[in-house]
């Protein structure tokens, strides 16, 4: 049996190995994605994002426990930042996810962002496909806590949960573009702290300033204390309600199209870059770079030249 067959059959070791393979990238990773792709499209992909320390890992773990209560299996991808200097990373999200030890219905994988902007690791999308193909009903993607620009998650997820905490700033923060616009559901975590009501009010006021959403979904603003699992049932209910809403109104299909377009763009970029690197093996690449640096060649002409070679 191939690695793809093993993981579709539910072999956890095969799944773990396969995720490593897509993290490494290249032709073997693409072959694997090709093999599992017909088995994907069944999981409900949930993105969870928010500032560092907002409680993402704790909330993800509590939501996973609630889904287990509802007899749904859960795959989790937890992304932490890579060091821009050494390329290494300390991936600590599992510390908050201890309670799932010994439960075969939960699979947790930590990934390093490896320098990619937007908070989603390079291979997160592929790893999501693998967990989907392995049969997990819900796949939660927890992003690194990068904050305002962390919007990649929305294109990869069916439902995006944005975590806020009391005391994160005034209502002008809340109308800035970016992370707040991608939310399908807001959760104000650590709601036992002072300022929780104010944070909820600011988010609701911000939502009322905007246009009525075209797909008829107004993001609910919930409160939670993830540490004590308070508000978690309501959060999971909201995520499921959003999923049903997307399915019933067709906005789901639109998202899947947008995601497919993004996948195609990514694949094109990767293959084009690889093709160009193959055409300009070794010294030629350096020579081109040198000419661009000397201003005797411009980067677009060099790229076009490489892409036109067979």
């Amino acid at each position, binding site marked *: 049996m191939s690695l793809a067959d093993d993981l579709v059959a539910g072999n956890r070791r095969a799944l773990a*190995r396969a995720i490593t393979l897509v993290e490494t990238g290249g032709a073997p990773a693409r072959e694997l994605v090709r093999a599992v792709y017909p088995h994907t499209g069944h999981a409900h992909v949930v993105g969870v994002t928010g500032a560092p320390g907002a409680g993402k890992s704790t909330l993800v773990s509590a939501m996973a426990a609630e889904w287990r209560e509802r007899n749904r299996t859960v795959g989790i991808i937890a992304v932490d930042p890579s060091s821009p200097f*050494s390329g*290494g990373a300390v991936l600590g999200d599992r510390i908050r996810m201890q309670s799932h030890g010994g439960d075969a219905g939960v699979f947790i994988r*930590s990934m*390093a962002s490896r320098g990619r902007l937007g908070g989603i690791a390079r291979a997160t999308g592929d790893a999501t496909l693998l967990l989907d193909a392995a049969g997990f009903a819900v796949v939660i993607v927890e992003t690194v806590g990068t904050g305002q620009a962390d919007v990649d998650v929305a294109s990869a997820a069916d439902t995006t949960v944005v975590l806020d905490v009391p005391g994160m700033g005034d209502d002008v923060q809340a109308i800035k573009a970016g992370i707040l616009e991608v939310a399908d559901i807001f959760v104000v975590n650590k709601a036992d702290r002072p300022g929780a009501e104010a944070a909820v009010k600011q988010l609701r006021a911000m939502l009322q300033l905007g246009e009525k959403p075209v797909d008829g979904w107004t993001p609910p603003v919930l409160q939670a204390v993830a540490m004590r699992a308070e508000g978690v049932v309501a959060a999971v209910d909201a995520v499921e309600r959003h999923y049903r809403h997307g399915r019933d109104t067709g906005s789901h299909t639109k998202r899947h199209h947008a995601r497919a377009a993004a996948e195609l763009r990514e694949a094109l970029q990767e293959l084009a870059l690889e093709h160009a690197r193959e055409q300009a093996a070794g010294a030629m690449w350096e020579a081109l770079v040198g000419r661009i640096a000397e201003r005797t060649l411009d980067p677009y002409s060099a790229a076009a030249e490489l892409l036109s070679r067979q």
Partner: protein
Amino acid sequence: MERAIRVLVAKPGLDGHDRGAKVIARALRDAGMEVVYTGLQQTPQMIVEAALQEDVDVIGLSILSGAHMTLLPKVVRLLHEQGMDDVLVIAGGIISDDDARVLKEQHGIAAVYGPGTSTQDIVRFIRENVGQRAP
């Protein structure tokens, strides 16, 4: 793309002293490795399950409680049951020379480090001994 060495750093047993584990985690990160840190009070079962899910190349076990002769061999045994014999297992903590010898010779622990060890020695050992498995 070259694959980063992935290391699970875990504390089996019940002692609550994780400074050493954090120092190691930080040093391995600075050496370009991806370190999955699982925190305190891990059972051997939890450690091996996490190592499986995370597909790590190395497990670093920090133990100061004195229970190393029970817990460390159990981790190695469970790894063997999962067919994960290619994972390099190293240990650090308060472990006597006699115990360290037995752990290395009889229980599949590749290296044992005591207080005062240079983190660079550990980085070098991992780089030289990590399994050269196919991706």
